[in-house]
């Protein structure tokens, strides 16, 4: 008996190890900064090491997933966590992206005064994110969503000396808090109606309060996932946050909240066709809104923000159809799209940040001719933009093909119509990706960029920035060429989630 107990605890320990490393790491980095050194590079390297440790500690999650075993942290009360295939997939993506961002910040934050706040917040955000995907009960889900989002609000407004940062952070915090409050109220109503918060929430909706609770949680998460019509906050927040933060927010945080929503909905004892249909409807609006508004942007990062709205729409459409027609292939394709988009959008923001730092480029006009001036950043930005448009060998292509492949198997007119709409949208998105690349490739650079280039002592960007940008791009290519391992994990996730509620 005691041997069994020890073994169980050991498993449980491996389960929470990544969260523990990140959580205590946040405190450690803060103490390191306050007590020993505030050197940005040291803090960035420490954070990166902690993320590598957490990444190694997360690998057993994927192993568990492969064996189909589930680990639950002490099965008494709250909080509870559970290693699932999906948790492994999203956690690994988030940590890889986080690692890239931490290293990138080693140079990107060189001129900022408060690295002692930045890195702990980054770690806390990732802690919450890991908890969000592995939460085994509703209250844990709520708590960790709030932890992630609260860290994100502060990070968005991190450069508080600029007016726009405070405004963007404030807007983001208001909208996000609205989502959080709705979630909290929903959790309360669900508790009141059923007396249990364990996920999946399989109890049949018994009364109006229960329904209201579920609806509130759903809408709360929809707001956080920036699904139409609650998408308007995203371009503001992601367009004005430091680029390194935008990379994480757009690349993984927003899609993760979509995943959390899909996971929750799949656990409900409600007709999946209706829930999936609702999600697909909103998703189509998201695609269209994101793509059409992105055409009209004049600031590079806002454009990338609207592109995220559209891409989240693609994911939501794939996952919603997968839900409605019980198609594991579509659900898996949505997850592959999520991972691919995470890497690509992450690199896009990081490369854009390099252009901002070295060439002072904020508006699209500033990007004219930067290809000659800053070939590394421009080249990577151009590469991931065509990747986002779904051109191989980057990962966007295999994701797009998987989505279409899954749609072909859904066997319903609605699915085909959504597929056609998706294709049209993906063509429309060329309307803003291509001109951006065209600007980078143009012959002459504007004056301010040349001046900024002269100011910067070395024209070659720092290795702290080049390594993560090149590394993440390489990963996106690898995923595009050999999607096999990630695809298998996505398939397991889909199979697991579809069997979840029953």
């Amino acid at each position, binding site marked *: 008996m005691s041997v069994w107990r020890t073994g169980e605890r050991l498993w449980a320990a491996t389960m929470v190890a990544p969260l523990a490393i990140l959580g205590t790491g946040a405190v450690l980095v803060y103490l390191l900064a306050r007590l020993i050194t505030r050197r940005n590079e040291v803090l960035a390297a420490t954070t990166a090491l902690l993320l590598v440790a957490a990444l190694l500690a997360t690998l057993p999650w994927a192993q568990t997933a492969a064996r189909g075993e589930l680990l639950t942290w002490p099965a008494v009360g709250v909080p509870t966590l559970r290693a699932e295939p999906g948790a492994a997939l999203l956690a690994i993506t988030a940590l890889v992206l986080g690692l890239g961002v931490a290293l990138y910040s080693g140079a990107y934050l060189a001129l900022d005064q408060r690295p002692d706040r930045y890195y702990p917040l980054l770690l806390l955000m990732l802690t919450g994110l890991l908890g969000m995907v592995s939460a085994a009960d509703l209250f844990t889900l709520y708590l960790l969503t709030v932890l992630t989002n609260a860290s994100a609000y502060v990070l968005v407004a991190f450069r508080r000396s600029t007016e726009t940062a405070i405004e963007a952070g404030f807007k983001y915090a208001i909208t996000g808090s609205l989502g959080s409050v709705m979630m909290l109220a929903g959790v309360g109503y669900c508790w009141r109606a059923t007396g249990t918060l364990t996920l999946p929430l399989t109890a049949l909706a018994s009364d109006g309060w229960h329904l209201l609770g579920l609806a509130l949680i759903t809408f709360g998460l929809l707001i956080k996932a920036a699904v139409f019509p609650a998408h308007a906050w995203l371009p503001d927040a992601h367009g004005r946050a430091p680029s390194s933060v935008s990379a994480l927010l757009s690349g993984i945080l927003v899609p993760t909240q979509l995943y959390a929503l899909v996971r929750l909905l799949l656990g409900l004892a409600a007709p999946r066709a209706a829930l999936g249909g609702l999600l697909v409807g909103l998703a189509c609006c998201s695609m269209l809104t994101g793509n059409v508004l992105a055409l009209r942007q004049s600031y590079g990062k806002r454009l990338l923000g609207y592109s995220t709205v559209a891409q989240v729409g693609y994911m939501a459409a794939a996952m919603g159809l997968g839900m409605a027609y019980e198609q594991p*292939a579509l659900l*898996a394709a949505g997850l592959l799209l999520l991972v691919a988009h995470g890497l690509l959008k992450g690199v896009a923001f990081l490369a854009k940040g390099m252009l901002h730092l070295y060439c002072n480029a904020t508006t699209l006009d500033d990007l004219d001719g930067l290809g000659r001036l800053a070939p590394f950043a421009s080249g990577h930005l151009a590469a991931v933009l*065509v990747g986002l*448009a779904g*051109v*191989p*060998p980057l990962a966007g*292509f*295999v994701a*797009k*093909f*998987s989505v*279409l*492949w*899954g*749609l*072909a*198997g859904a066997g319903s007119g609605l699915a085909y119509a959504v*597929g*056609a709409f998706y*294709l049209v949208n*993906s*063509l429309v998105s*060329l*309307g803003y990706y*291509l*001109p951006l690349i*065209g600007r980078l*490739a*143009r012959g002459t650079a504007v004056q301010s960029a040349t001046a900024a280039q002269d100011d910067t002592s070395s024209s070659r960007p720092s290795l702290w920035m080049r390594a993560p940008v090149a590394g993440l791009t390489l990963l996106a290519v690898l995923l595009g*060429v*050999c*999607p*096999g*391992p990630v*695809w*298998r994990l996505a*398939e397991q996730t889909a199979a697991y989630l579809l069997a979840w509620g029953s």
Partner: protein
Amino acid sequence: MITPALTSLCLALALLVPLVAAATELTLRGRALRLAAPLALTAVLGSGLLLAQAWSSAYGQAAVASYLPTLVGPGWRLAWRLDGLALPFVVNLLLVTVLAFWYGQDYVPVGAQPHAYYALMLLFFDGMLGGLLADDLVLLLVAWEVMLLASAALLLRWGSGPDVAATTGRYFVYTQAGSLLLMAAFAWLANSCGSTSPQAVAAHIALQGLPGLRAVTIALLLGFGVKMAIVPLHGWLPDAHAIAPMPVTVLLAAAMLSLGAYGIIRFIPGMLGAQALAAVQTPLLIVALASQVYGALMSLASRDIKRIVAYSSVSQMGYVLFGVAALSMLGLTGSVLHLINHGVIKALLFMTIGLVIHRTGRRQIDALGGLAAKLPWTMAALALGGAAIAGIPPLLAFHSEWRILAAGLASGRPLLGVVAFGAPLLTIAYVLLLVGRLALRAAPERLGVRLAPLSMAASTAVAAGLVLLMSLLSGPLGRWVASLLPNPMGGPL
């Protein structure tokens, strides 16, 4: 067991060599930049030798190879196949690429960054080769996009003209729209037939049929039709050809257009079955005729000599589609033969046009004339190319055009077959206009002529020699192509 291993090694290397060479190009600096063109040429020749080895080691069977089955998914494979249908196209691609690279060696606009230019050209070549050899639907899409990216980058960086960015964008969007249709159709096939291998899909369809066969056929026709520049999907072609540097134009017109036709032949009658094509035969014949006539009329109406030749491609691709849509072995042989002939002739025509533009500095037909005296050899080459494209016997295109038109008469749509005989008359008209104006009209004032680099002149001479040689050998050539082609009109390839 050594032979299959050798075959797959050769196929893999044939595709890897240009990639490695492209990467090597990018490392060249300083004096080593002189090596950019020789390195690229060597890579293409090496790739050709490897393909020859792969073909010969397969002893007349299809040379097939597949790698790393577990790493790529969901369900698709990394597989290449060099068979009788692909071989004529591969040979044509190699010939045209060597000519284009040689021609461009001292071509002025390339000057500043030859290493980047040749790296992209090699990538473009590799994309086309991959498109011809891909034995997997997803892989074909990948090759298609590599081809698009490389050629779009070449247009964007080395294009010349008023609106390079917009033209490149148009080219990209047209092709991408085609690719999306292909992608949707392939995803449908992969899901319905449970495999992305064309052979498996063909076997599945032959055995059990396919839901939505008509829609898939139309999507494939539209998708490949964009690349082939069939009217009304040709909107990208004239501008893209006009702005591209001449070696890129040669590759676009003489090799890339053929890939669209190759896709139609390989994947519609070859994979979906001849009955899929039969269902849309009449509209297809009409579209093909429209392309023949529209392309020729636009050639007649154009003032820019490069555009005149560019529009002629639209017309010639109409012939090819006509031959395919005739649904007979005669028509198919004629089409494949015509694609090869068209490749060589179009290369020669663009190369001579490039010489004229380079040596006179002008490209509007009204500003040119009297060149028979000033540039006799160039004009002789232009006349040869013009006569060849017009299908004048005994030059090579006569044999393929004759097969196509005869197949049209025999196709069961005699009216359309008879109308098709009108198109060659239009071809003769624009050829006469082009050659007559440039060579024989009185020379306009202040038309100076300067020397061309030796590589441009020599490669053009070789292209002209190739046209003559292929004319001499047109009988054996026709028999060779006919012997290579499996009979897709009777069943799966």
